[in-house]
């Protein structure tokens, strides 16, 4: 009996000792934040992840086209919902995807900058002063980009930086002032560009990183936008600050132009039809385009100023439909391309076709050659390569979708619809299904856009002739005759035709609409919606911006105000 009790006591003593240590287990699955941010490699990995939000569905992978590309008047979405803005409401996924993607960017860049500040060059294993500044500059430029889109999309989003990083989950945040947002954008780019590399200074492996030219172009673009989104909108146009900002915009654009880092891709002699088209299309293609005698560089070519990179791996997974969120790239191909198995959600509005000039078009064209780079007509080959499965003619009405026709719009003779050719030439995937990822890099700013924005800022500040010349440079590439005077109409038209389907049109319309001078009359914009829905879907002082996602309004407990009208 006694020995039982003794042994029992022993057993208990044995098993009950040190149970607190017993309960400690290691996390074998994940790194934790506490034991990271130590080496230069850690910071490089963090920087790389700060580029990802650009590639997210909420941004350039999908929503830039799916949302803003369908809001504009040059595309028809297969059903009228998106054309009518009716798929956009405070709880809709599009709003929160875009918001979320952009704040991934803002947070990662700000966290990175705050950790750089906290550790200092000497506190980071393997870090050099040059690399330290280069990492910080890229982070700043990226953050400037994220805030730029936050501001023009959501008007008054939440503002923070590396010194006010949100870390208390129970805090509530309110809308920033527009002026603070614009100042932040300007500051980020201004701080960034001196430490960034020139395009010509990039290693082959570095393309896709922000360059000083890209940062400067985006800085100038931001200042130009600020003129409309801020000064014009709030009746401050013409103020000293406005003039000063426009002057800065002009100088930055000029600096980009004068750097000779960028150029328009010109059709090469002998200029065949293909040379004209490919000189344009190479700026939205994923493979170099060979004409009869020449080859046109595509991704990261000399015309590209800011380009979001999407991998060319054919990330082909179990479910080829709606997959491939991160790794490879965008889903535009799957939604919009003329691929047999694409949803073909987009069709071009015939009005876009008629916007291209006929007069002065170079032979063999009857119309501005850019027209034929913009659309597929029935019968157009969808690849240049005879060995491709898509070396076949474009055919209207796949899946019974002939949207323009259904809506009673007048199409050019010989085609039953206008397919969107830009970014979809050649059709990427030879297989029977649309791919799960899209290899096409997204050109956010290309040099032609820089020239046109320069022309616009010159128009606003008083042209010395260089603005007109910049615009005419864009026309001369396709041998369209020069225009003689820089007017709002000329700028509107040139941006419309040059940048068709490149997701600029919506923001152009919105920003010009803040200024009476540009004559944007929303009631006259033709979205091409059908007879059943003839009411103009646009509500002024509402549809210029997206609603702030309802979930954000909710968690910020009344402090964050919804945009008007939503």
């Amino acid at each position, binding site marked *: *009996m006694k020995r*039982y009790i003794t042994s029992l006591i022993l057993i*208990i003593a044995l*098993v009950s000792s040190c*149970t*607190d240590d*017993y*309960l*400690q*287990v*290691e*996390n*074998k*699955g*994940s*790194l*934790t*934040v506490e034991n990271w941010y130590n080496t230069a490699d850690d910071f490089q990995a*963090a920087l*790389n*992840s700060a580029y990802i939000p650009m590639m997210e569905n909420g941004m350039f992978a999908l929503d830039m086209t799916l949302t803003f590309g369908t809001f504009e008047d040059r595309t028809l979405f297969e*059903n009228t919902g998106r054309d*009518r803005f*009716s798929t956009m409401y405070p*709880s809709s996924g599009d709003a*929160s995807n875009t918001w979320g993607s952009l*704040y*991934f960017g*803002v*947070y*990662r860049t700000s966290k990175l900058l705050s950790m750089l500040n906290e550790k200092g060059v000497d506190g980071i294993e393997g870090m050099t002063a040059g690399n330290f500044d280069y990492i910080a500059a890229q982070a700043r430029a990226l953050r400037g980009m994220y805030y730029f889109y936050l501001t023009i999309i959501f008007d008054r989003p939440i503002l923070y930086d590396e010194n006010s990083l949100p870390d208390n*989950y129970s805090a509530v*945040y309110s809308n920033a002032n527009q002026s603070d947002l614009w100042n932040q954008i300007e500051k980020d780019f201004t701080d960034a560009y001196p430490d960034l590399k020139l395009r010509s200074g990039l290693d082959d*492996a570095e*393309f896709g*990183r922000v360059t000083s030219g890209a940062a400067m172009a985006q800085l100038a673009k931001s200042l130009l936008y600020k003129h409309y989104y801020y000064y014009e909108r709030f009746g401050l146009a013409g103020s000293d600050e406005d003039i000063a900002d426009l002057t800065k915009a002009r100088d930055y654009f000029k600096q980009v132009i004068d750097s000779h880092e960028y150029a328009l891709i010109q059709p090469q002699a002998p200029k065949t039809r293909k040379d004209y088209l490919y000189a344009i299309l190479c700026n939205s293609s994923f493979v170099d385009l060979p004409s009869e005698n020449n080859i046109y560089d595509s991704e990261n070519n000399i015309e590209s100023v800011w380009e979001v*990179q999407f*991998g*060319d791996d054919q990330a*082909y*997974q*179990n479910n*080829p439909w709606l997959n491939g969120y*991160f*790794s490879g790239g965008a889903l535009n191909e799957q939604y919009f391309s003329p691929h*047999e*198995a694409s949803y073909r959600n987009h069709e071009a509005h015939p009005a876009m076709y008629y916007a291209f000039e006929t007069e002065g078009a170079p032979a063999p064209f009857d119309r501005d050659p850019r027209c034929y780079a913009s659309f597929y007509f029935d019968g157009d080959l969808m690849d240049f390569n005879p060995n491709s499965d898509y070396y076949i003619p474009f055919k209207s009405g796949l*899946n*019974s979708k*002939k949207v323009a*026709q*259904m809506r009673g719009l007048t199409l050019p003779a010989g085609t039953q619809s206008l397919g969107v050719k830009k970014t979809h030439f050649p059709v990427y995937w030879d297989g*029977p*299904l649309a791919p799960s990822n899209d*290899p096409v890099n997204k050109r956010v700013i290309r040099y032609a856009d820089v020239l046109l924005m320069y022309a616009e800022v010159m128009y606003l500040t008083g042209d010395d002739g260089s603005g007109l010349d910049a615009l005419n440079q864009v026309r001369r590439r396709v041998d369209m005759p020069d225009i003689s005077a820089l007017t709002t109409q000329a700028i509107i038209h040139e941006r419309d035709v040059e940048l068709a389907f490149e997701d600029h049109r919506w923001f152009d319309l919105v920003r010009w609409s803040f200024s009476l001078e540009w004559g944007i009359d929303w009631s006259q914009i033709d979205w091409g919606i059908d*007879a*059943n*829905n003839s009411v103009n879907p646009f509500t002024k002082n509402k549809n210029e911006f997206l609603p702030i996602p309802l979930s*954000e309004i909710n*968690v910020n407990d009344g402090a964050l105000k919804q945009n008007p009208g939503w």
Partner: protein
Amino acid sequence: MFPVLLALLFQSLLAQPVIGQAVTGMVTDENNQPLPGVNVTVSGTTTGTITDVRGTYSLRINVPDPVLRFSFVGYKPLEEPVNGRAVVDVKMYLEASVLDDVVVIGYGTVKKDDLTGSVAVVTNEELTRTPVANLSKAIQGHAPGVVVMQNGSPGGDVSFRVRGIGSINFEPNPIYVIDGVVGGDINSISPQDISSVSILKDASAAAIYGANGANGVIIVTTKRGSNTGKMKVSLSSFAGTHLQPKYYNLMNADQYADFYNKVYELNNVTPPLAYSDDFRKWYYNGDWHKGTDWQKEILQKNITQNYYFNVADGNERSNYSISANYYSEDGILINTFTDRVNLRANSDFKLGKFVKVGESLSLTRRKTRNSNWDAWGMALETSPLMNVYNPENNGGYEGTQIGVDYINPQGDTLTVPNTGGNDKYNPKGIVALPNNRDYSDGLLANVYVEIKPASWITFTTTPSIDAYSNHTKDWTEQYDMGVRTIPASTLSEDYSSGNAYGLKNQFDFNKEFGNHSFVLTAVQDLRYGTNTSVNVDASVFPYPQLNVISQAVPDNVTATGGEGEWKEAAYLARLMYNYNSKYLVTMSIRRDGSSNFGPKKRWGTFPSFSFAWKVNEDFLQNVQQINMLKLRFGWGQTGNSNIGGFRYQTTLAEPIHFSPVFGLDQTEAYALNELWTAGNPYVKWEAADMLNFGFDLNAFRNRIQFSSDYYIKSQYGLLLEVPISRIYGKWADVAPVMNIGDIRNSGFEFDLKYSDMEGELNYKLFANLTTVKNEVISVPSDILTDNNITTEGHSIGSFYGFVAERIIQESDFDANGDYLYPVPSEGKPSPGDLMFRDLNHDGQISDLDRTVIGKGIPDFTYSFGGEVYYRNFDFSVFFYGIQNADVYNTLRRDLESLEAQDRDHNKSANWAANYWTPERPSTEYVRADLNDSNRNTRLSTWWVEDASFLRLKDIQIGFSFPDRWLEHVGLGRVRVYASGMNLLTFTKYDGYDPEAPLSEGDPTTPGVDASSYPIPRSFTGGIQIDF
């Protein structure tokens, strides 16, 4: 001499009674009260009678050496040799199972009579009566306070809720304790192996499991050998088949073509050529008017079978029970299947005077083949114009939107997409082609050593292991089905395995001092678990007949894997005291630590107290009808530690989720960032406080047993992923967790059993009712999913949507065509659209007009039934029902509405014939137009249905072979039966089945019928044999 001889002769005459001799007698109970209605039979014959109101009987004997057999429900059967007597009086005693029933509770047992907590007990008989797959399904309706919901997939999981839903982010599943060991998978146990199941419902009972007890504790005790020295061999088997319970009334091919031709015409679009009579006649292989009935195509003929074998034997020193079970079930859906093999060996040995050792060992292998359940929904949307098969396609099935060369009546050759605008899957191909298998193996074993140095002290140590391994292998060979083609074969394999080792050391002190009885239990319980997993995806197999990973093109193989471990430690003490078995008190306290808890909250303490008073022993002694009236009160605290590991750490994403590319050759760059979990070092168990009031009443010689409980279970500190602003750069669905939610479940439970007999008819009746009021007391902010909201003052996961008033008519527009009511933000509605209520009176219909419009948690569940025994026949019925739960029927929504997205989907025939048109202004059916600018399909009351149902779960008739048939073949008992399950369902619900969608989804999204596997009707026959 002669008188002696005479006496002998007389005696022998009596001993060898004359055929036809009468025997009479009286049957009384232990209190010498006459027992009427007792069944009296002469063993081995069919002769029998029953006692009258005075307890007397009279029989004629016509066999030698007669033995009388007395039986009466609730009493121990009695056999009495006549031994020549003419008068045989007997006394019968109440069956031990009523008075001395022992209930297994946590870390011990207690006489049922002496229970102070709320414990539901389900017996082997109840579990095995209905021929079902597993324990969860068998428990449904048999345990008040436990709500079991299931779907119809073979071996499919069930939702198992003890007293409501008390967790939001974690499955509020009870914990399972199998033969004293926490863990294991109750659905891998053969129901026939179970001797009893105890469900600890209130905290006073469950608090003994501390941080694991908040969602209830299910204690399963398996059969052990008896010590009677009689070997028992049992065999049982059943086989049956399942049938689809219901079909939607869809358009046939003619109706479909006609419908879409009209819709296209309405929208000024030329309809696809595929919808023309000529094309259809030319294309369709079969009755082109009817087309394909996809709902039937996806079904298969099926069979369910079960074989169970058990041998048990034992004596005073040792005993064993060994069993084997094979169960297999085909689903009604093609390619759904499960089978299960169980082996079990339990034994006990006495070693000398003080020591006893024993073991419980069970091995399980389960195989499941799961197909694409979405097929239930796909079968509704695919065009009936499409052929089922196409031998020219890889895989053999027809696909949508295949361009076929068709020569029209004018002689032109046209390429026409075979299905017009319909681009859905071939539902049959999609279920028949993939081969998805899921294997899971389980080993659950414990060995105990019990040392009893004195009669009042016991020490038991129990090491245990709970090991599992799962392997899934999903293979889809390349196939062509038009636009839904899979151009490359894919293989996905997952392996995961884990072990949980346990060590339990327990002391029991059991002592009586006069009328004071004490049982003191002290336990140390340690657990340590590890798990590991590997997942491999591979695609493109040049030789698809070799579907192993190594045969995939190497570039197309990706692998992931992980590893983890966890630990738990607990110390507990419990005192059970009673005075004269009249006043009973139980107190317990448990201290629990877990590696899941944050470093600042590693340990929690969980106390409980309960008290019971047998009122009848103080006040109602003279009321003979009342055998027991016991009042119970209990209070306790428990927790839920199943909160996932490492939620206290802020972790970085796995690199696999990132790969930006840079450079002219677009090379992936390594990237990492904090994105995943946001840590909270204070993270701890979810806590529950429970109060329970109850009483048990046994009356009329224990024929009536009634008990009732009222409980309030407040669960607080629920771990919620606090929705944080996305400006924190965290992944939206992996937000930080904090112990902040607060939920209350309260309800009544009633359980009534009655057994009696009239004449030769024995019967038992039972009924029970469980109410649950689930209310969210506080959440930091509403948790909104696509359809559900968890918000204060409502049930978890209530439906959140618009109130649809009615269908808009032309009279709702003024002469200018202006709509007279609030306009949706999306744009002006048209006649035939749904009118939504402007709840916030802002003059427009927007997201702000949403409100709670239903809930997927029933107000109450109930069941009732009975068993009748007449001679060798038995018959039983069992009804189960729920009341006041809603289901969002997205299938009906899709079938009774049209928008551009589901253009060319098949629709309800009824809707197609009755939808709103100016000529036919319906008030029940919305219009059919490709342009649904009003968003009629949004979640509104229009599509939420009352899913209350009452179901005939089981109806059964059995026949036990008479003893005289069996004597000669050496069988003890043979029973055959036929059973029909789910034959009738009374419900207003329009879908396939109201229960399946209620069983699915996580706690915050119950009751959405998107494509739930309906519970089939089934017919089963079975046999039970004891040797």
